[in-house]
């Protein structure tokens, strides 16, 4: 009898913990995107207050696997250069289409996330570095989709007059307090209503909070998926060029948000039929495209962790809510690179 009560209590506690983690994920990832789950939990009267939620988030963030590595590099004043010397990169697109990702429930790749019996990729900030098993839908013993929406999925819309200008130098090899990497970045596109959205990078992020940034600019590395570098919600992808910076967001030339994380990547092709986001075994190595990401998070330099912060994109979703991130793909690009 006592055992039965204990079991019931344990089950209740586990369930409560799982709900707590799920609420954290909803809080972190969904931002202004409506979450049915969160609404349900509010009705049940189990919604945590903001302070409790932040405490749980911080606890999860401290478990990010790269924390030790990053600590060894964050204060580095004399980082070594890239083997073989600096590489200069020029990427451009002068018109045509941009593909804007919409909030979606990411299908879960078993090669990255494992199975309910043997889960993988669950450490670190949920959705940023890992994805706790409780956030994963399960059916017939397999993971299905992420339970809440994120910037990483199959849904998208197109925009016109897509323009991209990147001039970068990858000189510094590792994360450090200073960098010799250089970046000029500007991207813009026009929606069907005629509004132009622009993202400009202002300052390189020389070291990461949860994943390395390689001095701000990186070349010829592999990111995402199984790597633990960046979100596993994106497939493992060979990355010819990447940058991490802080930048500003504009709508019709007017500054609407500033000092946002701006991350760009030129990678092998990770979309499939119908522009669906690929699983690892669907990546096309002989093609490439450029991704721009402005996540709904801001770095907190006091806590050395990310805080939830929806991006003021100025872009309304069909349901009338504001899109809280930019995740934009450029496909008609010109790429030039050479050793300096």
């Amino acid at each position: 009898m006592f055992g039965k009560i204990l079991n019931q209590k344990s089950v209740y506690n586990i369930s409560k913990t799982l709900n707590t983690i799920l609420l954290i994920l909803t809080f972190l990832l969904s931002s202004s995107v409506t979450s049915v789950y969160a609404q349900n939990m509010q009705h049940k009267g189990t919604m945590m207050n903001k302070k409790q939620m932040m405490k749980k988030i911080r606890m999860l963030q401290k478990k990010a696997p790269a924390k030790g590595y990053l600590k060894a590099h964050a204060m580095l004043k004399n980082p070594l250069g890239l083997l073989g010397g600096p590489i200069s990169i020029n990427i451009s697109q002068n018109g045509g289409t941009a593909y804007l990702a919409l909030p979606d429930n990411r299908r879960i790749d078993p090669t990255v996330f494992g199975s309910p019996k043997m889960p993988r990729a669950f450490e670190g900030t949920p959705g940023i570095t890992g994805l706790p098993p409780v956030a994963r839908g399960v059916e017939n013993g397999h993971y299905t989709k992420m339970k809440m929406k994120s910037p990483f999925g199959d849904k998208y819309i197109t925009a016109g007059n897509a323009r991209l200008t990147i001039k970068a130098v990858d000189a510094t090899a590792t994360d450090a307090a200073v960098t010799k990497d250089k970046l000029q970045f500007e991207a813009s596109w026009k929606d069907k209503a005629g509004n132009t959205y622009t993202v400009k990078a202002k300052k390189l992020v020389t070291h990461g909070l949860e994943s390395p940034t390689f001095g701000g600019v990186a070349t010829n590395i592999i990111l995402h998926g199984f790597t633990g570098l960046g979100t596993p919600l994106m497939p493992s992808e060979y990355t010819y060029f990447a940058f991490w910076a802080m930048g500003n967001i504009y709508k019709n030339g007017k500054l609407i948000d500033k000092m946002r994380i701006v991350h760009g990547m030129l990678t092998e092709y990770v979309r499939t039929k119908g522009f669906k986001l690929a699983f690892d075994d669907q990546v096309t190595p002989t093609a490439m495209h450029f991704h721009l990401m402005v996540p709904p998070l801001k770095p907190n330099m006091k806590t050395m962790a990310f805080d939830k912060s929806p991006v003021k994109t100025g872009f309304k979703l069909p349901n009338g809510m504001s899109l809280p991130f930019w995740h934009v793909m450029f496909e008609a690009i010109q790429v030039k690179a050479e050793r300096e």
Partner: protein
Amino acid sequence: MLKKKNNSLKLLSLIIMLSTFGFVNSNPYTATNNIQTKKGKKHKKEVVKIVLLKNIAFVPKVITIKPGTKVKWINKDTAMHTVLSGTTKKTTDLFESNNLGLGSTFEFTFKKKGIYRYYCGTHPTQMKAVVIVK
């Protein structure tokens, strides 16, 4: 004979290259290949029509060919494309390419008269085109 065959192949390559870059003004997307039998006699002409996948579009968007013409699609984009017969609403299963990376090609010979619509599976809303066989 081998030399002749090599010359033919070189000629074909040159024509395709010139066609690709638009140097043959009369018909920039057509190449002709003289098929040879084992005995070395010229048997028939194989017409190859070139369609480029460029800047997220099929170029040209509409082509008109005769029955028996081979169409060769060449991906000039860095992006990945596919070539699928039919439309997004109604696929026809007549032809379907693999994923085409930069420089990859796909070929299909149209034997019967008709209007054949096709599209890119990765960019279905942007890339649609038609082959008219008459």
